[in-house]
């Protein structure tokens, strides 16, 4: 296994069903990994509105809808769909290697901020 800087193996890709998300607690960060038609995307598992578990939301294209009050976030950018909503969620670079989902935990990035090195 070639564990690159910050890239952490999280779980088998099979563990995340199509068009659903799953939460994983890594250290003290809770992330939500989503599986979209062959692609895996990771965001922080905490809705900026009132902390809803985004992993449990319904996926609509590349958006996820928070199960608590229905705010939507783009899984690709972490941005809220409506500009009027406050806050965005962090996104993490994600790839699949040999059937395992790797997340670059050091690569968290919020819209408008530069990726941490």
């Amino acid at each position, binding site marked *: 296994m070639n564990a690159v800087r910050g890239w952490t193996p999280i*779980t088998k890709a099979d563990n*995340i*069903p199509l*068009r659903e998300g799953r939460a994983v607690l890594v250290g003290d960060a809770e992330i939500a990994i989503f599986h979209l038609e062959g692609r895996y995307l990771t965001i922080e598992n905490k809705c900026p509105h009132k902390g809803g578990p985004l992993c449990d*939301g319904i996926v609509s*294209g590349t958006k996820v809808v928070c*199960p608590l009050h229905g705010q939507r976030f783009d899984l690709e950018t972490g941005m809220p769909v409506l500009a009027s909503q406050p806050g965005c969620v962090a996104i993490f670079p994600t790839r699949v290697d040999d059937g395992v989902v790797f997340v670059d935990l050091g690569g968290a990035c919020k819209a408008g901020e530069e990726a941490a090195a």
Partner: protein
Amino acid sequence: MTTQTMKQQLVVVGNGMAGVACVEQILKQPHNFEITIFGDETHANYNRILLSLVLAGEKSPEEIVINDIEWYQTHDIRARLGVKIVGIDRERRVVIDEDGGETEYDKLILATGSSAFIPPIPGVDKKNVHVFRTLDDTRALLEQARPGLKTAVIGGGLLGLEAARGLQVRGCDVTVVHLMDTLMERQLDSTGGEYLKRKIESLGIRVMLPQQTAALFGNGRVDGLRFASGEEMEAELVVIAAGIRPNAELARRAGLEVRRGIVVDDYMATSDPHIFAVGECTEHRGQTFGLVAPLFDQGRVLASAITGNTGQAFTGASPAAKLKIMGVDIFSAGSIDESEPGVEAVTYEDPALGTYKKLLLKDNRLHGMILVGDIEDEHLYMEWMRSGTDLTPHRRQILFPPRDADPGREVADMPDSETICGCNGVRKGDIIQAIHARGITTLAGLKESTRASTSCGSCTGLCEKLLRAVTPDFQEETRTTLCACVPFSYEQLRDIIRGQKLKSVEEVLNVYGNRKGCEVCKPALSYMLDMVWCGEHEEDRSARFINDRVHANIQKDGTFSVVPRMRGGVTTPDELRRIADVADKYKVPMVKVTGSQRIDLLGIKKADLPKVWAELGMPSGQAYTKGVRMVKTCVGTEFCRFGVQDSTRAGIELERRLENLFTPHKFKMGVVGCPRNCAEATVKDLGMVGQEGSWQVVVGGAAGKSVRKADLLITVETTDQAMETCDLFFQYYRENANYLERSYDFVERLGIEKIRKETVYATDADKKKLLDRLARSKALAKDAWLERETPVHATQFVQIQPMEVQRT
């Protein structure tokens, strides 16, 4: 005999769109006419254009009436419906009807429209070969349409495609057979036609082209088509949509000048000064017509001319056409002939998106356009074309004119002269003036007073935007479509799912929707699939709300609540002990008796759910879902001194019969042993109220955000009869309510009379069908909490732990 003071007789032959629109214009002018309209259809004037939507089930025949019988009466118009005119005696100025009756005229308007062209192919007279022109044609098609019916539509123009889609939505197995190698070749070029073909095919309609039909075969009834190539194809129903022919025979026999249509001048006069013509029956400067917009212009011109105000002349029409198939966006206008000298074409295409745009420019002005897949800029382009705007400054962005982020700007920026409704020639200024002058606040009001948005419907969106922009009290009409992702009504979706045999949410969204879906439509479609297929659908948990993925109710902190089923609100010491043990062991923050006579354990972690259920050893109470909640009961004859029926036992039995089933919205029941109603059965979705020797079954009650006393459905003698009645109503509600429609809204919407007629007073055969479908669903319904043993996915409840970082 007419004198100056007597009214002049105006006779109109043809009670269709153009003729009546012209009469409407005449009524707006000072005139001295007594008007008689003959129509050989038996219906009042209706909107022919919308027959496509009637066929597709998007509108009912009643909804497409333009002028109802009252309208004729109010305006003192003699309507002679179902009467055909067979001759004109120009000498004596009379028209002669089928029965030999004669009607005098001073002025005569011929508005006979056109008829479907039937190509001279052997076999077109066979049974089950139809055309698509009138309401009666539409009704005949609807009578035949059924799922799986092999259907061929001959002709791949606007009309043929709309007919094909309408029949396909009704479940027919449809093939479009087109003579040319491009669909809609009068409006599209070959590239546009190819895009359209792909889109139509993706809807599940087969397209064969170029394919010349040589004969229809079959013994009396049509069995199929034989093509010029020698190939054959099976077909139990054939629709011919191969073009139209002006109805000019009457005029020809009367000796008027007729070529393809009745020849008219710029003021709609024929070769006889007392006779005029409007509509599809006419030919003007060598042009005949097939769309209504220019016909309404003709009507305006004629109305002025015939009332002696000759002014504006009719100068012909620039064609504009839009396909009325939801999800297939096609717009074409102006000249699409690229070979014309001086014409240059600018094109853009994106095969993945299915978008194709072609603009034809001449002298830097817009001359024609083809828009496929993306027609959002249609209005801007039409305005450019109408006004002859010099496009030099727009050339760089001409295919993607900048759109304002604020959608209201689009209408705000339109000049008042811009046409909003092309069909009825209503301009933005007219609409704004009407809104102000009459205080209009609804689309319906706007339609009534301006006629905008009353023909093809493509301008509805704009009209609404204008209303929203101009009037602060704009009231949106309640939408019946499910959501923007799948823009169909609930009824249509049920038909589509059934007819097209769609078994999963993905399939529905891919073929009829935007391929994405959202949190509104996905759960709704999940419900519909489950209901339509009685549980034999392909369940897709990703389309369900989290509650239905883990069978518990999500709370504000992301934990879940657990409510076990406690039928009839009856429990045992044993159960209570287990509940107490679970509450202790999992440190449940709150244990609460609910309003539904059962116990709620709140604050449970997702990963603990399977263990909690196992240790409770009780089934799911479905407190988290749109499904059967509970039956609340009173103690009834067993203990109560007033009780006249055994409500507790009946309630437990009722809960057992219906538990684990899903419903459009949550479904609560109650059974009480006497009219004192201690368990509040009359404010439940379904209730049984015990009487001496009988049960009242009541439906549509509510005691939530709204409070409503249930309606009495029926009174029956035995408990068995009451149960069967409950089953009937329950399944009827499941099949006919819109998703998220509570029974109390459902009962009010349909009316208790209709519900009685279709449940308890239905024929035994229909009742049996309802009960059979309920039984099928019930046979597959399971206690959802058993998924603790057989989860649908390995991580359904499991909290994923990160892998150990592996070392090599």
